[in-house]
Each structure stands twice: as C-alpha cells, then as structure tokens.
C-alpha cells in the first residue's frame, strides 16, 4: 500500500503578523499579563497609602518621575485594550448565549463601555478631587 507523500502543515513562527485581528488578539493576551503587573502596582500603592502620608507622598513622587511614568502609561494602555476587548468578547458571546433574543452586540458593548467610563470618572473624582 503506497503511502501518499502529503505536505505536512506546520504553523509558522510569526503567525500573528498575518492580519490585524491576530495582532490585536496577541496584544489582548499580552495585556492580560500586563494587567496583572498593573494590579501589583495598585497593591503597592495601597500599601504605601496605609504606611502613612510621608511614605505615600514619596511613592507618588516616584511614580511621577519620567522613567516610571512612561512604562506606567504603557501598562495603562494595555489594561485599557484588555478591558475594552473583554467588553467586545462579552458582546459577541451573549448574542449566541441568548440565541439572538437579547439586544445586538453593539448595544451591549456600548452599554459596558459607558458603564466603564462612568465608574472610571467616579474613581478619578474620588481620588483627585473629592473629599
């Protein structure tokens, strides 16, 4: 019995460079790890806050210094991408989950982004401007 010489498939190394959506997917996934880093940063912030006004002030000063600010801004960008992509996924999934009976994905995503914005503004107000 002759075995037919097939050309075996192998996934190429840079597969995610192939199109925009694959790229976004990788950024989203990497964003997951970076969100964890961001989370650690927030925990440190909280612990410094608890340690007293001096410790907190010096920590904030450190955070504001350019060598720290730039990477933090990048981390923040990834967290935003990750969060927004999460909303998009929920939007896509719930359509199938509810067998099309719920509002269209766009509406759901819009609602979640809106809620995210409201909560974010509230937090920023509390932290920077509030009592």
């Amino acid at each position, binding site marked *: 019995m002759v075995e037919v010489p*097939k*050309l075996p498939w192998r996934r190429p190394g840079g597969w995610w460079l192939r199109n925009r959506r694959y790229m976004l997917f990788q950024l989203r996934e990497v964003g997951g790890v970076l969100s964890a880093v961001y989370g650690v940063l927030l925990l440190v912030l909280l612990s410094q806050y608890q340690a007293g006004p001096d410790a907190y002030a010096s920590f904030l000063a450190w955070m504001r210094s350019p060598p720290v600010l730039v990477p933090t801004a990048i981390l923040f960008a990834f967290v935003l991408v990750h969060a927004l992509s999460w909303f998009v996924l929920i939007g896509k999934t719930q*359509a199938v*989950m509810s067998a099309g009976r719920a509002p269209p994905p766009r509406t759901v995503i819009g609602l979640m982004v809106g809620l995210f914005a409201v909560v974010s503004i509230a937090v920023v107000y509390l932290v920077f401007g509030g009592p």
Partner: protein
Amino acid sequence: MAEKIVAFRVKRYRPESGKAPFYQEYRIPVRDDTVVLDGLNYIKDHVDPTLTFRWSCRMGICGSCGMDVNGAPRLTCGTFVKDVDRGGVTVDPLTGFDVIKDLVVDFEPFLRHFLHVKPWIVRETNKPLSEGEYLQTPEEMEAYHQQSLCINCMLCYAACPVFQGNAKFVGPAALALALRYSRDTRDEGLDERLGRLSTRDGIWACTFVGECSVVCPKAVDPAGAIQSLKVLASIRHMRRLLLPKSARR
C-alpha cells in the same frame, strides 16, 4: 462586459515529483463577474490541465472550494476577482491542513473531530413514526438554527491559530455542531457532549481569537458557540460538584 488580464499566482505541490512546492503564475482574462474559481477553471481548461483543486456547486453551499486567497481563507466560488485583485491574485491551499496536491488538502482530522461530538439527535427512546413529528416552535428552532447552517467548508479551521498549532483541537465547526444538536429540543445529549468536549483539546483549547466567526461564509458564529459551550460546561461542572445527586439525574 469588459475583459482584462489578471495574474493568478497559484501554489503548486506535485507529490510524485519529489520537488518542493512552488508558485506558478498564469495570466488569464477576467470580467467583472468572474470569481476566483472561474479563474482556476479557466486555467485548468485552457492553460494547464494539471492544476488540481476541489469544487462542485459553485454557489456556496457544498463547501468544497475553500482555499486561501491573498492569505485569507475564502470560498473561491463566492470571491470576485475584482475584489481581490491586488496586482494579481494569490491562491494557496487552505491553511492548517496537510496538502495532498496543489490546492487539495487533507481534512480527515475534521471528520474525526466531527464524529467525536456525536452530531446527531441523541435520545433514549424515539416515539413511533405514527405519532407524527416532534413539536418544535419557530422560537425553539431559532435557538439552534444559526449553527445548523454550517457547510463544513473548513474556513474556520484555516482561520483558527489554535488549530493551526494543534491538530487535536476539536475545532470551531465541530463544536458549533455540538451546540446545534445540544440546543435542539429533540436532543438529550447535552450532558454527554459536554463530558466529551470539556477537555484540554476540546472547548478549553479555544482562546476566543474569534477569527473563525470572521471568515465563516454562513455566519454560523462558531466562536460564540464555543463560548456558550464553555458557560454550559462550567455550569455542569459546578452542578456536579455542589449537587452531585441531581446532576446525575
């Protein structure tokens, strides 16, 4: 209708030649309503009879003619040359599968995965035919109808980076059909299917890239279907954990 000449770069693989795969270029006349499949047939009938590819219905329902066009998985019978002509059209065999010859790939892995999800009505007993049809309202049919439209064209497998890296992944189409049957009111197989598919190479291999749903020519939304299965599997898991007696009922 005006005619123009377009270059087709087609990936060739001649298994008995011992040679590596190569691109062959053909310059052929096309019109506004010429689809890529028409182009391939023109080449085979008038230029190079050795060019090998699958096709049949030419109306997007049999699922035979899936290939990579300019790097994206498409049904060539429904892809107009004028829409993909970027100084030429590149045609490759579908990503993710072993190539048998030229543009013909081996999708036996799909058929194995397909069998694994038990894509038929699973029931303990059937009522006799004399009692007529099972009643199923239009709303009940809506619950699974979208996933029933899968033509098994394999574009979703070609698009899925997980399947590209792991041929053991059950894959989008098979999982969409698992949901289709599980959601059919006539079926009783949800629990069994979840048991089979809540595994590392089953639904949990999926990382929701979502490209399968982007390329699906029939809007089956396999990505959404897999996430639905994940939710159902999670609920089943918790129920078995917390209420073992009722879960086994």
